[in-house]
């Protein structure tokens, strides 16, 4: 009788190919995974930013490669009343619009945080101004502010009879400035309201019940519970909002193009005006670069001034 021994079976264990080994090598994997993101950032962010900063130190114009001029562009800007005008209006525009957006946005968020009928429908409606492309809403505002066909003038003059003449929204400096701020507030409210609403919903209702039993009034509950607990989110939303507002371009350019008599130029529109239609690429870039310190300051202020609170620092135990 012959004994046949079955060959011991082993799970096939192939030597991994070089490609597999390469991808199992961690540094390479990290490099490979980061490559697309880094590449995109380099091409679309770092390169334009770097080029912009470089141009700011040259006297490049359209069609002529410039030479390095050091800080000459910036020295020139400091003596340029239009630049100072734009600095003033950018700061003013940002400050007033931010206050308006946050006052109205917080109010809306508090309203929407209550139980009310058609809540989700209302929330969707609130988002509308943000969903509509800026240029479209800018055109709508252009009509609203039109000296002849303005619906506001129509209401005040023809329907209500409170005025005898149409309002000239965009014809002179201060009305134009405030009209733009109103448009910016309208557009910015949804972002603020929805973000703050999300923040409000993280506050446990039992805190309000505890405060109710502790004898608080509605205002005290807002002052001592809602507001302090909302501060961290408020800080982040405000940082973003300030950055978006300070660098705004579309609304102003579509409605007034910086007019009348350059009174509503923001730094962004002035930079574009100088650089592209004006052809002074170096100078335009310098104006754009001059926004950076303001932005850094605003970011640092709202971040350190508002964001971190001791009660939420570090890891919690739950």
């Amino acid at each position, binding site marked *: 009788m012959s004994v046949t021994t079955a060959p011991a079976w082993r799970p096939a264990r192939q030597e991994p190919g070089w490609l597999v080994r390469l991808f199992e090598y961690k540094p390479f994997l990290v490099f490979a995974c980061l490559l697309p993101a880094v590449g995109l950032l380099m091409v679309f962010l770092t390169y334009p930013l770097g080029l912009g900063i470089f141009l700011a130190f040259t006297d490049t114009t359209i069609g002529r490669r410039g030479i390095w001029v050091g800080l000459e562009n910036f020295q020139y800007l400091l003596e340029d009343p239009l630049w100072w005008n734009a600095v003033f209006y950018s700061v003013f525009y940002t400050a007033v619009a931010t206050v308006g957006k946050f006052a109205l946005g917080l109010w809306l968020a508090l309203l929407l945080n209550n139980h009310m009928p058609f809540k989700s429908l209302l929330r969707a409606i609130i988002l509308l101004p943000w969903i509509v492309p800026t240029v479209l809403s800018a055109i709508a505002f252009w009509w609203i502010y039109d000296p002849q066909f303005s619906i506001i003038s129509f209401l005040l003059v023809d329907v209500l009879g409170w005025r005898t003449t149409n309002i000239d929204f965009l014809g002179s400096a201060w009305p134009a400035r405030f009209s733009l701020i109103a448009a910016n507030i309208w557009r910015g409210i949804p972002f603020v309201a929805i973000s703050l609403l999300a923040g409000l919903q993280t506050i446990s209702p039992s*805190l309000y*019940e505890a405060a*109710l*039993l*502790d004898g608080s009034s509605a205002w005290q509950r807002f002052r001592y*519970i809602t507001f302090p*607990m909302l501060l961290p989110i408020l800080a982040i939303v405000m940082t973003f909002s300030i950055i978006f507002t300070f660098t705004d371009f579309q609304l102003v350019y579509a409605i007034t193009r910086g007019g009348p008599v350059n009174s509503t130029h923001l730094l962004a529109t002035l930079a574009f005006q100088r650089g592209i239609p004006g052809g002074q690429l170096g100078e335009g870039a310098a104006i754009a670069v001059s926004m950076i310190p303001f932005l850094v300051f605003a970011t640092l202020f709202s971040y350190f001034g508002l964001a971190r609170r001791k009660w939420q620092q570090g890891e919690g*135990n739950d």
Partner: protein
Amino acid sequence: MANVAFRNVRKAFGPVEVLHGVDVDIEDGEFVVLVGPSGCGKSTLLRMLAGLENITAGDITIGNRVVNQVPPKDRDIAMVFQNYALYPHMTVFDNMAFSMKLAKAPKAVMESEVARAAKILGLEQLLQRYPRQLSGGQRQRVAMGRAIVRNPQVFLFDEPLSNLDAKLRVQMRAEIKELHQRLKVTTVYVTHDQIEAMTMADKIVVMNSGNVEQAGRPLELYDTPANLFVAGFIGSPAMNLIPGRVGSGGFEAAGGAVLPLPPGASAAAGTYGIRPEHFRLDPNGLQARVQLVEPTGSETQVFVRLADTLMSCAFRERITAGPGDIIGISPDLSLVHLFDSGTGQRLAA
């Protein structure tokens, strides 16, 4: 301090009625525990007393004053929430002083009141911490401190110990009880843990699906449960409730066993109730087969089968018998409860 009364209190959420007419009297300084299974309406009743839910029908009185329309802050009550509801952005001191701050109390008063409460609860070292820097038991104590500084007429607790581990729970149970003995404030305490109820209460109110099943002193409920629900709910390990009917030789259980009846037992009995600890070992008693033996140290719990009837027994003696062995047991006839076959009410023996 004040007495509290519920008079035919009803609560409906939309079309669903969750409390069907609750009547409870709570005396001044009494420690009352509301106990019942999950969803029976304990928290709802407590929140109605606090003023956090409105009252659909009936009256709630505090100190003989009907408070149905009185807003929470004017009811002079303090509540400890299940999740403690500490203000996360305030220190322990500020949490405890918050009610006084709202009332614009002078700073010196605030400090002395908080110091008094902190001393009672052993929180002196923690006053400058934030809630997230505290352990569960410490948070629990801060929540109690916040209630104590208010000097309220009534304390309300909604399952305050359910987030703590077993050991801490026993410790906090004793602390709350001691606190009550010291302050003598009327207290309403909600729990679904019947041991907590038995150990802490002056009076237990057993609730089941929106009704009060029985209210009384803990041992009263243990000794004379009003009905099947209370009999099964109070006591651990739970009472044996054996369905069957009264026959000529004793109680004929549905499983086939025949159990001895106390003299003068009513023929209406449909359920035979006997607590595990009221069996004793008796070689001449019922011969039952051991299914499972669970020694807990102080006593031994034995599950036995008699014909097809399963019962649990608890003995102080150590048991040597193992599964499959036969032991003789006999119930203490003076402690047998019989329940009406129709209504489930206890039949007075």
